[in-house]
């Protein structure tokens, strides 16, 4: 495959970039949905992320790329090997960013009977699928609204449970599959089911920039990249490297970043005001705000962080009144203004 466009060279689209960075700092935020216009660099950003992420340490020869440092999350094979006292060997590998191609069949997504060996030797062996490859990384679905329903259900189920269970064709396998689901699509091609929307932690809307300088800059950079990718990558290498270091630093800081009770209350009040169903919204809001604080290098999560991530974390969770066409952004902004202004007046 051709070299990806450098992440830091993407012009604008701050929400999308921020959402992807937050998800890579704290994967438990749970997935990013990118919806919007054509030709806005949705796929470009996700593929760029793959090149940006710092490498991870994984067990050698493990089809799932198990992490050595967390014995609880090991796959069956690695756990078996660990028993024999010999420490598991590990090496640095790039974080997987797996592209789920349209037209993929279920056997390749979930994994299935290894046909080659079944046919040739009559052996029943499991051949891991894309979910196995995406473990500890990202699974990217372009045009998520064109994906067949049964595949969507499967993905959601695995993403929620962190485990892939294959019970078919006479094989019975379960293996860890924790990944950040990234979906992108164009709403014109068909709407997403509400259940699917809710499962994504963050949702960003991308719009084509309408101001001339931004557009010219996009065109200029893309044109330069297309003509000479290598030179372009060299020119942006330092920027990407800076960003990579920021991600590493943010991950290190994440656990120590403090979320004061006042902020939690503020988040809860905001969710109540917006009437988002369930606790998932609050949890995501809190995690996203914490990830943002650690990216920014702040020790304490405050209102500023909440306000910045609220639209991304809550937009797709608003209980929709089908007959109300007020934009969700407007509703969130209104709620934010009310919640924070009231608070500010009180203090």
């Amino acid at each position: 495959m051709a070299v990806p466009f450098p992440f830091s060279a993407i012009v604008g689209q701050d929400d999308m970039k921020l959402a992807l960075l937050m998800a890579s700092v704290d994967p438990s935020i749970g997935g990013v949905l990118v919806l919007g216009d054509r030709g806005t660099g949705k796929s470009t950003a996700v593929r760029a992320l793959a090149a940006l992420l710092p490498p991870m340490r994984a067990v050698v020869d493990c089809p799932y790329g198990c992490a050595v440092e967390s014995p609880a999350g090991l796959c069956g094979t690695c756990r078996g090997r660990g028993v024999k006292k010999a420490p598991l060997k590990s090496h640095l590998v790039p974080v997987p960013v797996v592209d789920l191609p349209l037209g993929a069949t279920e056997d390749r997504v979930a994994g299935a009977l290894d046909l080659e060996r079944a046919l040739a030797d009559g052996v029943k062996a499991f051949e891991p699928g894309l979910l196995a490859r995406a473990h500890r990384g990202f699974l990217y679905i372009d045009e998520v609204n064109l994906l067949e329903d049964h595949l969507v259900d499967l993905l959601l189920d695995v993403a929620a449970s962190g485990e892939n269970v294959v019970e078919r064709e006479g094989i019975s396998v379960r293996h860890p599959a924790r990944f950040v689901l990234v979906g992108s699509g164009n709403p014109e091609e068909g709407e997403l089911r509400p259940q699917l929307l809710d499962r994504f932690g963050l949702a960003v809307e991308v719009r084509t920039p309408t101001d001339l300088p931004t557009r010219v800059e996009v065109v200029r950079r893309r044109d330069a990249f297309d003509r000479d990718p290598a030179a372009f990558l060299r020119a942006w290498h330092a920027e990407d490297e800076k960003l990579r270091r920021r991600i590493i630093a943010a991950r290190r800081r994440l656990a120590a970043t403090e979320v004061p009770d006042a902020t939690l209350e503020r988040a809860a009040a905001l969710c109540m005001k917006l009437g988002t169903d369930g606790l998932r919204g609050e949890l995501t809001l809190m995690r996203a705000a914490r990830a943002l604080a650690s990216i920014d290098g702040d020790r304490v999560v405050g209102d500023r962080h909440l306000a910045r991530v609220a639209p991304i974390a809550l937009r797709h969770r608003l209980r929709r009144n089908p007959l109300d066409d007020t934009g969700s952004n407007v509703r969130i902004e209104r709620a934010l203004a009310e919640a924070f202004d009231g608070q500010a007046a009180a203090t």
Partner: protein
Amino acid sequence: MTLDAGNADADADAAAAPAMRAARAAADAAWAAALFAIDPIGTGGIVVRSAAGPARDAWVEQLTVRLQRAGTCRGVRRVPCNIGDGRLLGGLDLAATLQAGRPVAESGVLAQSDGGVVLLAMAERLPAGTAARIAAVLDRGEVAVDRDGFSLRAPARFGVVALDEGIGDDERLPEALGDRLAFRVDLEPCGVDDVRDAFEQLDVEAAIDAPPQPAQVSAVELPEAFVEALSEAALALAIASLRAPLLALRVARASAAQAGRRRAETADAARAARLVLGPRARALPASPAEAGRDDDAPPPPPPEASPPQPAPPAQDSAPQEPPPSPPAQEPPPLLDVLLAAAAAVLPSHLLAALSRGATARARAAASGRTGVQQRSGARGRPIGSRHGEPRGQLRLAVVDTLRAAAPWQRLRQRARSDSRAPGHARRIEVRRGDFRVAVYKKRSQTTVIFVVDASGSSALHRLAEAKGAVELFLADCYVRRDQVALVAFRGSAAEILLAPTRSLARAKRCLAALPGGGGTPIAAGLLAAHGVAGAALRRGEIPLLVVLTDGKANVGLDGSPGRERAMADAQAVARQLRAASIRSLLIDSSPRAQPAARTLAEALGAEYVALPHADARVIAGSIGGKVGGRGGSEAGGHADGAGRG
């Protein structure tokens, strides 16, 4: 004689417009072909909008010749629009697999077209899913296959020629793919001679000794000002996608390379604007770029003349035809040159429509043409397998086939060793009778078509209540993910206010804006609804009519008043609907239940609901019950039907 001459002049003038238009369209098409041939991969491709015919054949033939001459193309591969994933992307090669006794992969058409050109026939019928697959391959330059137990990556860089035979705005190549192809040409006005002449003319204008290589195209220097001006021109023409200016840059380079220049000139940028930006324009440039056209803008909006294209703009834009070389005086700013070049391509009626601010295209895009082909029996949740041969849309259920073959292996192997036929002992022998194909269950979409009587008799009493009921029901539709359409009739005709869509906000807006008053042309209303329902059926959806009327027709099908005739017409159309077995529900909106509506309901075969003193919720409840009974409406996949199709 002089008199005649004068007349002839006028005639020639009138006739010149279409002829001129044809010649210009053909010239653009020829240029697009020539530039595409130089750099098929970089420019992405061409959308050719035209019915099948000699003109298009001539154009394709010329394109092929030029591709060969340029040496940029390893071959042109024709791809039908209903191609399956197995052939498009690749997958298991069944015959080879059975012969070899192990899985053998087969590469798809896209991988085989690497370095060549893919010709999409009947591109307007291309399913959104297929378009998205091709678009993904174009973006990545490789085919990613994860199917049938294979995980393969194969390089696939190619240009696309999409032959779009669509008529009207809602039949066109899916935008997901069209957005990635630089050129759009329209051969509709051209005859075969126009096309041939255009190519001959092109050869005279731009004789090429040695066609440039794609690398030379990339190397062409493009002044910074061009990048800005093309971006600005795209913005001024309200082209949202950023791919358009990018592709325009590429085309400007190809144009310069074609002329043997190493640095692009204004003429190249103008050509790119004309070929890439012009056909994509969705608005007239806001800045008065050219005074000449500005004078024209006011006349178009006479409200009555919408479909026939006003002649003046056509003639007026014709003289401005040679845009690259502006007529003397001081050289106009680059942007104006580009805008003039792009605007010159706009067909005159589009010009008029655009200046009126019409949004025909936007409507087509949003009219609920959702991606998935609903009818395909090869999608959805697999619910097992059945006997049959994998053919057409049917997919082989490999494991089930093997399972079917497995018990017989020992017997078959023994039979083979008895007959001393060659073969490996360990192979699994699969015979024709073992084949199983997957059966899928798919969810059928319901399309609820509201037929609302907005006539005076209804409006007086109940229009507001009926609107309330429909609104409540819309919320219900939302829960079930139904599509809704809205047909209203009043005065002397019916109108499809809203083509099937899932956008309930739009339905609500349409409904709120619906005025009342006038006659009651029930027959026309039902007929319009029949059209919408028929289209839904063809898409594999289940239509449901909800008719709100008092049944008192007083305008016939031909628009003439007269109660008797009108009632008879309404009955006749209603019976047609019944014969087509389209389910319906009639809500009587008259103040007291009366026989007229009941009779109509009988003719329709519809359930009849009187609306005595309506509480909108009661109506919504009764509709909800009616549809809810069928609920999610999971219908078994028509595997047999697909097999025949």
